[in-house]
């Protein structure tokens, strides 16, 4: 609960109203802790109603039994046992769920690494090279332009570009660089990663930029005065101070990619397994408990990754 509010606060300062300043400005007889509760209350209620309670239901349903057309509210581990079917018998080969998660994690890692790299330098440029606030603002807005169209359209727009007879292939063939169209441009891991990076780099840029603009410029000057090279300043001053932004951006990207099945489906030609896809197939077959069980597994794994990340960087302390 605390963490998520911190994340929101960090991602867009001022989103949670009144923390700090309002309290000081208007003295009141109500105890400060009561006011804090009042301020956190609405968010807490929303969180409770739209996240915690549904989540509890998902966990409960994941332990129900089911048949072709209904949920049977009797305790059953079938959703889980079906999911891990044959996992032990198949060793050392991976079973379906194992392969699916290896693939999902692989895509997730690639997308994370690339968006972090691009996002970091875009944020760096915006924070340190663009001097005027107006330009900073203007360029940040420029980053949001792709978001003016729908997710699906941005994704589908790649298809005529990367296809067998697409712009890229026909261009390459015409210039004589290749004889046959490149098949791996579309409906491959490459196209999936490309589309995901295109879609989500922005989620890295914003929090990292946010952390970077808060860095006291005099620290950088001090480093420079102390004789540090640009690289040393980057490694010893900027990166440590931008860490909270990096972690928050990473959490955004990782949670989205772990749960994604639409982009992976469309760009992967429906041939690449994704954890979210298994859930979708199960729901479509009306096997809700099995879908819920897979959702719980996905949540647990994502949660594990995020816990590990917040071990590396204590966001609360850094803020």
């Amino acid at each position, binding site marked *: 609960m605390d963490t998520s509010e911190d994340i929101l606060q960090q991602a867009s300062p001022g989103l949670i109203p009144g923390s700090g300043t309002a309290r000081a400005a208007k003295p009141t007889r109500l105890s400060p802790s009561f006011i804090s509760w009042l301020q956190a209350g609405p968010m807490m209620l929303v969180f409770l109603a739209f996240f915690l309670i549904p989540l509890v239901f998902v966990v409960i349903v994941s332990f129900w039994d089911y048949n*072709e*057309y*209904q949920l049977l509210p009797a305790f059953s581990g079938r959703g889980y046992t*079906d999911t891990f*079917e044959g996992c032990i018998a198949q060793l050392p080969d991976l079973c*379906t769920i194992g*392969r*699916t998660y290896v*693939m999902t994690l692989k895509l997730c890692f690639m997308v994370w690494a690339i968006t972090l790299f691009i996002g970091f330098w875009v944020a760096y440029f915006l924070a340190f090279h663009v001097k005027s606030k107006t330009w900073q603002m203007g360029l940040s807005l420029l980053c949001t332009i792709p978001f003016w169209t729908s997710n699906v359209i941005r994704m589908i727009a790649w*298809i*005529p570009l990367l*296809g*067998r*007879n*697409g712009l890229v292939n026909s261009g390459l063939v015409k210039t004589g660089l290749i004889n046959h169209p490149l*098949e791996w441009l*579309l*409906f491959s891991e490459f196209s999936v990663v490309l589309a995901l990076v295109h879609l989500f780099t922005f989620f890295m840029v914003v929090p990292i930029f946010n952390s970077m603009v808060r860095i006291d410029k005099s620290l950088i000057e001090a480093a420079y005065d102390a004789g540090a090279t640009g690289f040393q300043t980057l490694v010893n001053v900027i990166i440590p101070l931008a860490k909270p932004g990096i972690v928050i951006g990473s959490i955004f990207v990782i949670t989205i990619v772990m749960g994604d099945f639409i982009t992976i*489906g*469309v760009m992967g*030609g*429906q*041939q*690449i*397994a994704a954890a979210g*896809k*298994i859930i979708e*197939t*199960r*729901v*479509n*077959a*009306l*096997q809700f408990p099995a879908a819920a069980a897979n959702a719980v597994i996905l949540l647990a794994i994502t949660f594990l990754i995020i816990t590990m990340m917040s071990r590396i960087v204590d966001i609360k302390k850094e803020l």
Partner: protein
Amino acid sequence: MTETTRTKGVSRRTLLKGTAGLAGLAAGSGAITGFPYVKSADAKVLRYLGTAVNEGDDISKQCLKDTGIKIEYITATTDDVTKRVMTQPNSFDVLDTEYFSLKKLVPSGNILALDARKIKEFDNITPVFTKGQTPGGKKIGNQGTAPWKVLYLEGKDSKKFATSATEFVTLIPTVYNADTLGIRPDLIKRPISSWSELLNPEFKGKASILNIPSIGIMDAAMVVEATGKYKYADKGNMTKEEIDLTMKVMTEAKKAGQFRAFWKDFNESVNLMASGETVIQSMWSPAVTKVRSMGIACTFQPLKEGYRSWASGFCVSKGVSGAKLEWAYEFVNWFLSGYAGAYLNRQGYYSAVLSTAKAHMEPYEWAYWMEGKAAEKDIKAPDGSLLEKAGAVRDGGSYEDRMGGVACWNAVMDENDYMVRKWNEFIAA
């Protein structure tokens, strides 16, 4: 004093807002049933849940003109239609769904069987549905969930399918078709005559099937049988061993790079074909028409092993009664009376009552669509756009040839759960 008043006002307003919100929630969730009925007591309104196949503005406009019934379409994919029947049976009045869903819908008790005696044209419904044969007497393949297996119920509230005709009909048939592979003749450049071509290494990286497990596996089974590897007792109701075998063949092909992509919806299949990413794939008839209307050669290729067929029809939600039920009968009767049937025939589908549809079509249209004859004049789609020039012949020929060539029907297997798990494995392979 003023301060207090204001506070009171605020709290009252907040309270009102809260109540209104709650009422809205309740209405939205369907908890307050009957709510919309009050308003629509005079205007005859039916909420019509279905896939987009039968749903057309022209049909609803004509229906309003002829009967005064206003149709409100609720469009969803086949899977979502089923989900909605299970979880929100009060959110629709008339249900338009496929016969194979009945294995799930009927036991759920959420749909109401219609009374055959109240359907005027019931006796004129094509024998495809009632007897499993064409009007010309050709026997139709009965593998899978063939409509005549699930057409009747034992009683009004029965959850069991009757083996012989009763007056309680699960779905009043509306539309059906025989599906096969779509090909790009301009890129393949040779005749294609068997389902086995889907896995022919010649088309490596250029083939596709649909990623809807219950339909995809039927297409896969047609392929396996065509290659001579195995002969199924019932492709639409496989044993676990048969599912394993089918998925093994498909997995090997997938690992060898046979498939360019799988598709999930109409537009995806059109794009794959139109862009030349694939040259042979499972396809639906209107998708083939769509590719052709883009000026790209595409054939809905008849194959020697026959077609995989599907059929859909009408029933009503269990919550429908009284006047509303009468309107539902009126609507179904109107639907079978010809206008809608002719409209569907002109889209390349088939209507359930042939005689009434024929009366609403021009003789040359009937000859082209139903008798497999060369078009005397240009063939136009219901919206007036040109489909085929004069002289063209429909893929697969006449109604007799196409429906007579059906080998199996879309199905929900007894081992559906196992099949879905195996399908996931295939995708992950």
